[in-house]
């Protein structure tokens, strides 16, 4: 009965279909894309509002009762994630209007990116573990195409690694689902949550399957030591594609991990916690060290994606109301921060023709606005108060200290310093430093952003400005956001409301 739950799937779906039908008509595709992503944002906000007001919402596709049909369900966590899709979708589409070349648009860039949203929203909203696999594949195939679109050598090379390792993950996922069905006889996640604890003799095997899911989602989520596909490929497509990848794809992996480890695999908690903590620690450390070694802006930021995922996992591993809320809050924050940074990188590349920090320079002087738009997300990512990233880290560290997990707290603090270090590297190299020639004179020709016509400047800068504003709002006015995150974490930890919303009175 609940149309709001299915809308975030249908809107991008229809947008993509109409985009495909308008094949060859570039202007029509652009228009459809902008309208579609606007509607998606509105639909996602409505969903979040309904969920926050009326609790968890569910709809049974085909009107078949759960657990027999496929349930679409939105709790606070998934609603927040869908809103992030809406926000990033609209931002990226607007940004792409002036950054994606005509050839790519003619080959269906816009419908494909909406197909990606279909997969992502489907993954966030589905309540069925096999259906989750299907949306994963939708998301993946769309990302495959977007990644290699253009056919440049680097894209093809990166694409092979991306495709291969993600297909391996899909095979693992499928195997895990098959075994889980072989153990439980059901696929509905809420139902699984009820059935799994009753499998007395097979509890050990449930843990094994949980580990399989950990790896399947872990590859997609770019955890240590499974993340290789990400730095190999994320810097190869156009920046708008990188932005949407960085914002959404790995987050779906982490979302799924949080979902299954809070809803289904809650037994064997000590073992799972140790595993997750170790992986979280290594993920954040190896990721940030990877970033430290880079001088190419997109590569640097790509490694940061990995590092930040370590924090998200840390929240799951600590498994307290505070830590899970921190993960949810962190997720929204890092999506914004990372996207803004990539978007600024795109503008720099547009103006200077390179992403190489050694060749960039002078933008602090010539484009103060751009400098501010970089500085805010950069400091937020580094966890400087009172920006959004600080509260996320603060809550995680507090949760870690409260549960006496000192090692992970120490790791996260060290990683914070290194994050700050690599953010200031970009700041110093691309902004503060002046481009210099051999004779030591200042190099002329650092193009300020003001040289672009307003019709380009606006789509380039407006999304970044909005995101930067959001980060300030989420930092200074963190209360409503964190409160929502706490609500999400409580729903996940208690589970009864979720199960009730999906299965209703039965079971």
């Amino acid at each position, binding site marked *: 009965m609940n149309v709001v739950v299915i809308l975030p799937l249908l809107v991008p*779906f229809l947008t993509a279909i109409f985009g*495909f039908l308008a094949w060859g008509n570039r202007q029509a595709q652009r228009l459809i894309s902008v309208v579609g992503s606007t509607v998606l944002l509105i639909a996602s906000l409505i969903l979040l509002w309904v969920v926050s007001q009326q609790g968890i919402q569910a709809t049974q596709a*085909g009107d*078949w009762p759960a*657990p027999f*049909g*496929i349930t679409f369900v939105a709790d606070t966590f998934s609603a927040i994630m869908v809103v992030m899709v809406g926000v990033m979708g609209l931002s990226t589409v607007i940004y792409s209007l002036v950054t994606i070349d005509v*050839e790519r648009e003619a080959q269906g860039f816009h419908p*494909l990116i909406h197909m990606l949203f*279909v997969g992502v929203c*489907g993954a966030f909203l589905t309540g069925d573990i096999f*259906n989750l696999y*299907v949306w994963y*594949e939708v998301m993946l195939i769309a990302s*495959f*195409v977007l990644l*290699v679109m*253009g*056919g*440049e*050598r680097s894209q093809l090379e990166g694409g092979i690694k991306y495709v291969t*390792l993600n297909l391996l993950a899909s095979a693992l996922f499928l*195997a895990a689902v098959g075994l889980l069905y*072989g153990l439980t006889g*059901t696929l509905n996640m809420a139902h699984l949550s009820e*059935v799994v604890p009753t499998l007395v003799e*097979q509890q050990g*095997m449930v*843990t*094994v399957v949980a*580990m*399989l899911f950990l*790896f399947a989602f872990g590859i997609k989520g770019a955890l240590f*030591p499974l993340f*290789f596909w990400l730095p190999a490929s994320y810097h190869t497509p156009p920046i708008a594609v990188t932005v949407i990848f960085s914002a959404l794809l790995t987050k779906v992996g982490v979302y799924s991990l949080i979902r299954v480890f809070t809803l289904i695999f809650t037994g064997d908690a000590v*073992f799972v916690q140790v595993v997750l903590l170790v992986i979280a620690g290594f993920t954040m450390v190896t990721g940030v*060290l*990877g970033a*430290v*070694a880079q*001088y190419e802006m997109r590569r640097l930021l790509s490694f940061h994606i990995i590092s930040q995922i370590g924090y998200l996992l840390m929240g799951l591993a600590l498994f307290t109301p505070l830590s899970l*809320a921190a993960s949810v809050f962190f997720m929204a924050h890092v999506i914004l921060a990372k996207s803004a940074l990539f978007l600024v990188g795109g503008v720099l590349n547009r103006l200077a023709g390179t992403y*190489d920090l050694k060749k960039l320079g002078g933008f602090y*002087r010539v484009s*103060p606005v751009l400098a501010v738009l970089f500085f805010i997300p950069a400091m937020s990512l580094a966890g*400087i*108060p*009172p920006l959004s990233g*600080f*509260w996320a880290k*603060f809550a995680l560290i507090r949760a870690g*200290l*409260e549960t006496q997990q000192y090692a992970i707290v120490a790791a996260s603090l060290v990683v914070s*310093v290194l994050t700050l*270090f690599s953010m200031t590297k970009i700041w110093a190299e691309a*902004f503060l*430093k*002046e481009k210099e020639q051999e004779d030591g004179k200042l190099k002329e020709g650092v193009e300020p952003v003001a040289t672009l016509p307003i019709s380009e400047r606006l789509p380039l800068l407006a999304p970044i400005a909005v995101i930067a504003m959001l980060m300030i709002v989420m930092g200074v006015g963190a209360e409503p956001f*964190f409160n929502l995150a*706490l609500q999400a974490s409580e729903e996940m930890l208690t589970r009864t409301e979720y199960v009730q919303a999906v299965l209703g009175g039965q079971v």
Partner: protein
Amino acid sequence: MTRTDVPRSGTLPLVNWLSNGGSGWVLGLIPLSLTLWFASMLPPIIAGEVLRVSYSWIPSLDVALAFRVDGLSLVFALLVVGIGTMIVIYAGGYMAGDSQIGRFYLYLFLFMGAMLGLVLADDIMTLFVFWELTSISSYLLIGYKHAYNSSRSAALQALLVTGSGGLALLAGLILVAIAGGSTSISTLIEQGDLVRESALYMPALVLVCIGAFTKSAQFPFQFWLPGAMAAPTPVSAYLHSATMVKAGVFLLARFTPILGETPAWAITLSTFGAITMVLGAYLSVSQVDLKRILAFTTVSSLGTLVMLIGIGGEYAITAMMVFLVVHSLYKGCLFMVAGSIDHETGTRDVTLLGGLRTLMPITFGATVLAALSMSGLPPLLGFVGKELIYEATLDAHELSPILLSAASVVGKVLMIIAAGIVVVVPFTRAQRAKPEAPRVGHEPPLSMWLGPVILGALSLLFGAFPTQLIQPITNSGVAAILNEAVEVEVKLIPSGLTPYFMLSVLTIALGFVGYWFARPTLQRVGNATEGLLEQGPVNSFNAVVNGMQALARWQTRVLQSGYIRNYLRIIVSSVTLLVSYALLTRADFSRVQWLPIGATVLEWVIALAILSGAGLVVTAQKRLNALAGLGLVGYGVTLIFLFFGAPDLVMTQFSIETLSVLLFILVLYRLPVFSSVSSEAERIRDAIVAGAAGLMVTLMVLVTVSGQLERLLTPYFAQNSYPEGRGRNVVNVILVDFRGLDTMGEISVIGVAAIGIVVLLRLRLGGEKNDPETVSTGKEQL
């Protein structure tokens, strides 16, 4: 420097005036009015009141935006805004004509606001937020001359040191909050015992001390402070006299009732403080750059303050409060003077300077007052402060009065010498006739001498009447720190020939003797040891940073090797290891049917056919053979589906298999023959990894099928497929109805895949040529 002067022809005189120093006068009104506002709070605070205000900020995280004005915070606040007023006015003159002066003031006020928030905070999270903001805004200020590499790296160094300390502090503060059960500083002050008795006390103490020591440049973190002299002089004058570096001192003072009054606290603080005090003073006398001399004396003074907090008790804390004021006044003045000299003569090198007394008489006057206060001569406030310090060290019976007093005397003697270098050399010595001698200086504009004069005059005024002007406010500050009312006399005239007075006299005597006779020796020794003492920590810091970067490069090279087979091997191995561990330690193997009994002959044949097909794929030397093997596997799987009642699967698998083989032949026709490029060892290693993974899968399947499967969904499909779903083919009804969404996703996948193929085949943006940038940067990192 990037002073790309904008042509100003035709602009209004007002604009002209503002950009040439006038802005300082206008903007100075802001801190001036704040100063007056805070001054108006003096009477109630001196009367013992504590003003508090609290706003709910993030209640779900227990974070409040709370402020507290008591003796301690008021003294700090007055220093922040009072000296801030002078600095803002001074900067207007100093920075006149700078094209980026707007940014400069923005950062300066951001810093001022952060510093105010920090000293007034009554919630540890409020405190921390402002603490970090001071780090960031000082980073922007220190790196203000951003075109210079030295400036950028100094700013980064300061940020990394204080930022790391900040994170330690964060952990420490959270531990305090957990131990004390509150984030409110006022509450924690009342419940200090709770924290001190907690098991978390020691870690909290260590972490808070790291935070304070990094910020306040205590040994061994003192090295970032002289580096930060890369900042424009008004910034140095502000950050290093009254504000940034005092934040750590403030923190320790604020936390004295929470963490203090334990042996661990006293020993840690007094030891590190005393070391810093002597080291800073020692290093200052061998410098030739005016700002660096002042920077090292700042380090020394900060050491003194930390040592006094460590000693504790009402006398030491009173000494700390007085010396805090002393130092802020004279150091603010001297830094501004150094800036003026630099501004007017073009150099800060004391070996080149001379004869400025007659050229800059007003500045000289202010300098003399400040230097006398720094030397601790009566009747300046510095003398009062020094008396109190000796009183405190000589009474530190629980520590080591002799050692602490001796250290203090050494520090003070060296300070006198440093003061002499600052005053005597540039002002009174005859101008040297060197080729590199600076241009002749003259008195700077009013905006640049007003501040030093006021601060110098205040040193004199407060020194002359300490009991009336200083004692009430320090007493209330001490009361705030010790959380009890105190009445310690702060006076100019010593009460007879006390030991403190004798030490004082000795210090001054030694100072003068040292200046006239031992200075060259000291400078020689200082120069000889500077490499070790000053460069040592800097080098260690650089070694850490470089080592970290080397580690980063190494790790990236090893992990992100670029070879997909390495990635696969790592992933497959880690999956196999962890999942097998879980399997072997947790799974129940008791009901597993190990032997494949019960299979029919035909089934055996098919199973073997599939396996031999797989074997053919693996061993094939020719592509066609591999494809044949693949076909064998595919059609074998189809037969399995046929034998176990899955007609739809048979039809689908068969047609897909055929399509796949066609596609393979069509696409791969022109690809080269296989070549065995891997070595024997590699192949064996990979076979082991793959074999282990396969074995793990087999075991997982065996364990899974060994249990009873209760079919929770299937009966529903069997029951409702026809009556409700109107279809007799249950699989099809599941596909298009029960689980239609799966199919929806499925056709989306193949649809997008088809478009992807079109995209791949048609769109070639420079696909045939190498992307030079990607390749070059890629190799560069290796």
